[in-house]
């Protein structure tokens, strides 16, 4: 029972990281039909930014505020990845609208460049951040211990999700975004600047990956390949959950995250990967078009 609750807890915290990364992927795919393979590298950048902020606090600020570095790192990581995302969209992604497979490949080229840049700047050895002291330890209920940093991650993701929900469904910008997603040409005719909508959406998605990077930094060492470890699962969550609907992404991420933690606990991480893949393939047997249905009078898009 204790093990079960612990797995559940770890599953939820992994799911929430996957959720943050897959959300950006799903929204950009739904909006622009673009898959961003460099998304994992935004996560990596977010993690490195946490490290940079920590170094800054250690070297230039009094020790008494040292613990606050993490609070500062979150907006900083978001800002940096948001800007990088905006640049990437402006110079690369905007040439790739509708070319799903090509977008996947071109962004892989970007990902190679970003990984090498990370190696050049931060070295090939992994770096570590020390979790702020207020995240040390955890709460113990009965025989189960819930560590503060995982609880914090879950909380942070919940807050992010809340903001995204507000932006998507309760703001003027969200209305425009959903309009472009459903019918780009029509939205443009209504006077929506779809270029701007695309750019902001893509940047927000990248920023979310940056925040995910902050949370990853709490869990282990950071190196240039840290993004790759999470991104495959995030892609699978997108396949499972479909695009354009928040709920789909939440469900997809939860299934992928919990499935991998549970199988990992009872077997091994190797079999977990195989089982997650199997789940997705089986799911596609049942609902191959359940992801999104294109209704159009032309045969092939």
């Amino acid at each position, binding site marked *: 029972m204790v093990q079960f609750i612990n797995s559940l807890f770890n599953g939820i915290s992994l799911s929430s990281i996957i959720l943050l990364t897959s959300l950006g992927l799903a929204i950009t*795919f739904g909006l622009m039909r673009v*898959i961003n393979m460099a998304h994992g590298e935004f996560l990596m950048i977010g993690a490195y930014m946490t490290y940079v902020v920590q170094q800054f606090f250690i070297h230039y600020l009094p020790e008494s505020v040292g613990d606050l570095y993490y609070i500062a790192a979150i907006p900083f990581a978001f800002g940096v990845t948001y800007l990088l995302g905006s640049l990437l969209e402006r110079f*690369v992604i905007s*040439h*790739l609208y509708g070319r*799903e*497979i*090509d977008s*996947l*490949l*071109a*962004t*892989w*080229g*970007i*990902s*190679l*460049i970003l*990984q*090498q*840049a990370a*190696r*050049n700047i931060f070295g090939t050895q992994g770096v570590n951040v020390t979790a702020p002291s207020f995240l040390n330890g955890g709460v113990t209920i009965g025989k189960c211990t819930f560590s503060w940093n995982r609880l914090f991650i879950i909380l942070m993701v919940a807050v992010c999700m809340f903001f995204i929900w507000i932006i998507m469904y309760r703001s003027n910008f969200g209305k425009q975004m959903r309009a472009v997603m459903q019918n780009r040409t029509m939205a443009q005719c209504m006077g929506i600047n779809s270029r701007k909508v695309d750019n902001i959406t893509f940047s927000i998605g990248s920023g979310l990956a940056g925040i995910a990077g902050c949370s990853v930094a709490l869990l282990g060492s950071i190196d240039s390949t840290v993004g*790759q470890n999470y991104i*495959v699962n995030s*892609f*699978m969550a*997108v*396949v499972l959950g479909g695009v354009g609907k928040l709920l789909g992404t939440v469900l997809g991420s939860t299934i992928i995250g919990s499935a991998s933690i549970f199988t990992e606990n009872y077997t*091994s*991480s*190797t*079999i977990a*990967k*195989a089982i*997650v*893949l199997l789940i*997705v*393939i089986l799911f*596609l*047997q049942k609902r*191959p*078009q359940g*992801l999104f249905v294109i209704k159009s009078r032309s*045969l*092939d898009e």
Partner: protein
Amino acid sequence: MKSLKKKGPDICFAMIAAVLACAPLMLNAGILNSSSIVLFLGKCIAFAIVAIGIDLIWGYTGILSLGHGLYFALGGYCMAMYLKLQETGGGITDFMHIGGMTELPLVWRPFNYFPVALILIIAVPGTVAYLIGYFIFRNRVKGVYFSIISQALTWAGYSIFIALSPYTNGNVGITEIKTILGSIKGEAHKQAMFELFYISLAILIVVYAAARFLTSGKFGCLLVAIRDGENRTYFSGYKVSAYKNFIYVVSAVTAGIAGAVFVNFNGSITPSQMTISYSIAMVIWVAIGGRGTIIGAVIGAFLINLCEYNLSSGSMVEIWQYIIGAAFCITILFFKGGIVGIITEQIPAVAEKLKNRKKKTKEA
């Protein structure tokens, strides 16, 4: 002019093959100074073979597989297991010993026999690809969804091969193996190395010819038809899922053969050959060479690997990652046809424009 366009790729391939065939002679004549270049060209031949396979499904059929490293490695492991057993004389290997085994595991036993090993080099990747393809294509999963699943497949395969360390030697892979013709190291075995090189070249030529045959007739038209309008092809009465699965298996088998060739020249095989980035590297060769033309895949594989071989030593190794990343990105963004496309379409188009402009200025 028209016949040149039709024959051009074959002539180009014949030239590449001829240059390759001269490489051992050049080594003998002292023009090439190190036998490692010939070994490297042998690896390039393997890369060209797998590139042809990727071009068949991506360039022609429009299915992007990010998991061909898996099939490449499966073929490679089959070959390596046979070669390793040649070394141990059928006994158990060091890593099995360390893994706690006392006798040869069942999966290794067939690899004692050369013909069986050869069959398995084709059968193992083929079967895996058939099963995966069957379940995915049957439900018309396509586009990026297929790519993502193929990526996850490689990922799972990679970690399984590492986890099964008593059978596969985990991270280290199967190392210190000779070739099917025995040792090729050193001056004494130069002849064996040349023979191996020519055998590989012959395999490349056969694979090239087969790919040209497949893509030239009605079948080739169908592949393009599936790429451009999958549903339309269904409504023309073709069972597209079967076609896709067939070409996927063909492509996986090609990758397996390439892996087997590669092992002979590389002397080892490791799970790093089945990572996602290794798989996408193969796609990069095809993209830069020119997708949708078999010759483009061959050119891309040789060109990129030769560049990498010459550049990625010393301080250049870091810059190489930037170069290849940027080149790939720019190719996809602006030169869809890769090098072949630039030669056959973009340059003539620019030339035409210049001609017209000259005419206009003259008229003015």
